[in-house]
């Protein structure tokens, strides 16, 4: 029986339900030390003195690192400098420790000792003197001419500026039948993975650096560590233990540089782990953005002009900020092709905690803006919102206007059909429905995504895999595709097993360990099953070809006459002329040969699509929004493992609902201190809060993905907030411009409309 298309249980689920799965903080090495950071209480300050003598003298303390005793090599914790999406001159803006702090919670020292309590005690004995500097937390204020300068080498606090201009926007806007403008601002949403990030590092006696961390980009971390510590890449080994969620937070560096520096200083393995409070005050977030969008439409609904101004708050360091801004163009400029475009995106330094990559990577912010504008346009044009989108969206057979990639599969029309039918969209004509103080309405939004980052010729989007046949005819796949909970390490085996003609049970995948896996750029951009899956499939194909060539020689037939199914190689049209895979492999093995196949992901990309439909009820007295139903019809290409894909979409919807209605980490306006440092203050969706989710998998197979698959992990976040905002508008007539759409904000909008 083939494996592709079946909801096989996840391979690692057995370890995870028995408590035997080891996450980074569960690891122990002999002689291991524990480490913690000391962090700044000030948002912007120069360190005038740091006295570690008392802490250093504490029995059991092995090392304390500060700006005074660490290397000053500049780096970026993001991956942009390696991926090469666009050049950003200011990217390399970090050092291990600086003599200046730029946000509340920035590390000023790190201590390593024999146990966590001794380390905590040592941190309390460190005396730091600061000279306070004026600080700025809001991106618009940071752009003002007299704003405090956050990095000496950067003018106007501008980390990146990206203009895109096509055609003549001013003329087209003037001539448009309808012009719709909407400005939105978005929140500092935290990835809030439940695992607290940790890193175990061991700079061993042979001079090799061994790192265990929940990184999504192990080979990039290997490269970055090699550069930072001036080592050959072959001397750095990065390993993934089980990963307790990441959602973008563990792309590039997290704790690796400091853990490695401590191990080098102490000669011991060092485990560095964050507290939940540090997970909030550090460890990345979604970029808060201000987006102003204007779109002009022709009488038939087709967009004729689009003007986008986008300001992203990247916080104290550029990290992923410039690339997140660049990536939003993929959400403004592709789904509804428009001949005249002016996009201007800026990522801005502030004294906020650094933002970074977060599942969706700019998509939820852009989606909140453009999908509301389309909804407003439909109303002004007196068209049904689904009908307008059908009319103007990109189609199969066309070329996307931004990356110029062919759209070879597009299940969006079917997403519209099945989503509308499921939620019974025709009821919208009798909406809103009033029930006492409650108003009920329907809204929808659409999305177009990517399968990986192969979109510009300059972008690095490489996955390499090998498949090795073992002496008994079973197979081992080696690939550094991380599984942060996505199921990739199950679905990749499904792909390889079917290509090999072996039962799923006879194919295993090796560890994510840069010592034994070929290069793989990382798990981001909805790329893993698509790109690493292509590499795994090609590696399996390659090893099969070698195997069949050997079998053909053994059976004295042409390769084309052979079939391979269920571990048996047979001569077509015969009953008795067959060999087991094991027999062919074993014969080769005895002659000193092992079959090893390799595959490299081709530089292809294929857009997945989705349409989401929300039914909401709004309490007109309190502003509370209740989502009654959320239907998500997503074209994910062929679903390699339908249950895993559903789980990915459901998880993304939960995070999209949190983005829409609950989540933000505001900073104190005076001090810049994060106001939510626990899960009590920062609410993520709980089980009773969640509305019913209805996921519909639309499978328009992609010609370029493994067995027709496309990217599926991130897309669910893209349109959720806009679908809910559009439903709120349908219910109440008010248009929302900020997320989260909290009761206070909805009530303020209702009151403004009533006034």
């Amino acid at each position, binding site marked *: 029986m083939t494996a592709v298309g079946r*909801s096989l*249980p*996840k391979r*690692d*689920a*057995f*370890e*995870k*339900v*028995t*408590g*035997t*799965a*080891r*996450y980074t*903080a*569960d690891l*122990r090495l002999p002689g291991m030390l524990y480490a913690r950071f000391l962090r700044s209480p000030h948002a912007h300050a120069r360190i005038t003195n740091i006295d570690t003598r008392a802490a250093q003298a504490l029995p059991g303390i092995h090392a304390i690192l500060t700006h005074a005793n660490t290397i000053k090599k500049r780096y970026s914790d993001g991956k942009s400098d390696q991926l090469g999406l666009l050049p950003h001159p200011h990217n390399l803006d970090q050092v291990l420790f600086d003599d200046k702090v730029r946000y509340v919670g920035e590390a000023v020292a790190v201590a390593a000792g024999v146990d966590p309590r001794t380390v905590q005690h040592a941190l309390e004995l460190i005396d730091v003197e600061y000279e306070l500097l004026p600080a700025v937390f809001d991106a618009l204020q940071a752009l003002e001419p007299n704003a405090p300068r956050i990095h000496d080498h950067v003018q106007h606090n501008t980390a990146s500026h990206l203009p895109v201009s096509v055609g003549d926007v001013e003329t087209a806007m003037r001539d448009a039948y309808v012009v719709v403008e909407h400005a939105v601002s978005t929140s500092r949403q935290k*990835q*809030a*993975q*439940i*695992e*607290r990030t940790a890193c175990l590092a061991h700079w061993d006696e042979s001079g090799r650096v061994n790192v265990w961390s929940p990184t999504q980009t192990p080979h990039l971390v290997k490269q970055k560590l090699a550069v930072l510590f001036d080592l050959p890449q072959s001397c750095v080994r990065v390993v993934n233990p*089980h*990963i*307790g*969620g*990441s*959602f973008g937070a563990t792309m590039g560096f997290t704790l690796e540089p400091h853990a490695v520096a401590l191990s080098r200083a102490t000669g011991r393995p060092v485990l560095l782990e964050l*507290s*939940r409070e540090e997970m909030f005050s550090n460890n990345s977030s979604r970029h808060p953005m201000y987006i102003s969008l204007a779109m002009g439409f022709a009488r038939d609904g087709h967009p004729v002009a689009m003007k986008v101004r986008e300001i992203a708050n990247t916080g104290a360091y550029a990290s992923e900020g410039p690339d997140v801004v660049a990536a939003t163009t993929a959400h403004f400029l592709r789904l509804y092709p428009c001949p005249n475009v002016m996009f201007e995106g800026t990522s801005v330094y502030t004294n906020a905690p650094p933002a970074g990559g977060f599942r969706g990577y700019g998509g939820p912010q852009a989606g909140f803006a453009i999908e509301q504008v389309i909804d407003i346009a439909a109303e002004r044009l007196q068209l049904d919102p689904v009908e307008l989108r059908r009319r103007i969206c990109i189609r199969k057979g066309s070329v996307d206007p931004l990356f110029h990639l062919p759209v070879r599969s597009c299940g969006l029309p079917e997403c519209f059909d099945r989503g509308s039918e499921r939620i019974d969209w025709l009821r919208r004509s009798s909406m809103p429905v009033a029930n006492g103080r409650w108003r009920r309405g329907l809204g929808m939004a659409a999305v177009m995504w990517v399968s990986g980052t192969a979109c510009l010729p300059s972008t690095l989007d490489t996955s390499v895999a090998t498949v090795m046949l073992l002496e008994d005819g079973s197979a081992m796949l080696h690939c550094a595709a991380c599984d*942060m*909970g*996505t*199921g990739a390490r199950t679905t990749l085996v499904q792909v390889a097993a079917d290509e090999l003609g072996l039962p799923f049970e006879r194919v295993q995948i090796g560890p994510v360990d840069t010592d034994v896996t070929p290069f793989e750029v990382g798990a981001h951009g909805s790329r893993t099953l698509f790109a690493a899956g292509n590499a795994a499939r090609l590696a399996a194909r390659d090893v099969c070809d070698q195997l069949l060539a050997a079998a053909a020689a053994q059976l004295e037939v042409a390769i084309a006459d052979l079939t391979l199914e269920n571990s048996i190689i047979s001569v077509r049209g015969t009953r008795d002329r067959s060999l087991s895979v094991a027999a062919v492999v074993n014969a080769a093995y005895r002659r000193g040969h092992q079959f090893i196949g390799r595959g490299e992901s081709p530089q292809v990309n294929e857009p997945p699509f989705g349409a989401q439909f929300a039914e909401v009820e709004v309490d007109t007295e309190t502003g509370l929004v209740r989502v009654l139903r959320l239907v998500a019809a997503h074209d994910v290409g062929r679903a390699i493992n339908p*249950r*895993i894909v*559903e*789980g990915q979409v*459901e*998880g993304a*919807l*939960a*995070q999209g609902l949190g983005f829409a209605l609950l989540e933000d980490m505001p900073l104190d306006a005076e001090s810049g201190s994060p106001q939510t440092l*626990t*899960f*009590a203050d920062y609410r*993520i*969706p*709980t*089980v*009773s809060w*969640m509305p019913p*989710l209805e996921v519909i998998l639309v499978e328009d197979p992609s010609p370029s993905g493994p067995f027709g698959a496309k990217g599926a992990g991130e897309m669910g976040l893209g349109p959720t907030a806009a679908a809910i905002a559009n439903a709120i508008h349908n219910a109440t007539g008010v248009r929302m411009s900020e997320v989260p759409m909290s009761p206070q904000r909805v009530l303020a909008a209702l009151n403004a409309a009533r006034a």
Partner: protein
Amino acid sequence: MKLALHVNEILVERDVEPDVTLVEFLRAHLELTGTHVGCNNGICGSCTVLLNGEAVRACLLLAVQVDGASITTVEGLGGRQLNPLQQAFVEYGAVQCGFCIPGMLVTATALLKSTPDATRAQIVTALEGNLCRCTGYVKIIEAVAAASAA
């Protein structure tokens, strides 16, 4: 302080400092790392264990408070074989990153022991204090419902 208790039905005797939490004791002293610490504030529920059959947060208890008690962690739920609840979590795709899962399983075990025919509403109420960031809870509820007699 001297401490004697049953952990997963095995008698354990240890000397511990009075400020060691139950979860530290389980993870560091007994090397039972299946019990996870997501927040250490008693909010996320990842560290849930059974104390004399009742679901509690191991990060909020001191080890010395459970002297003489019987503790069950995720490692003690099944034997060499998965129990029906664990099996349901695997089959229904309830596990993504898996970090919250030990707490979910322990909480659901306590529920199904007191209410073997738990309804969907009862399952949702019981799991309210266990945070998951991966799944949207859909398949976790399905898995517990499948293991319930209701």
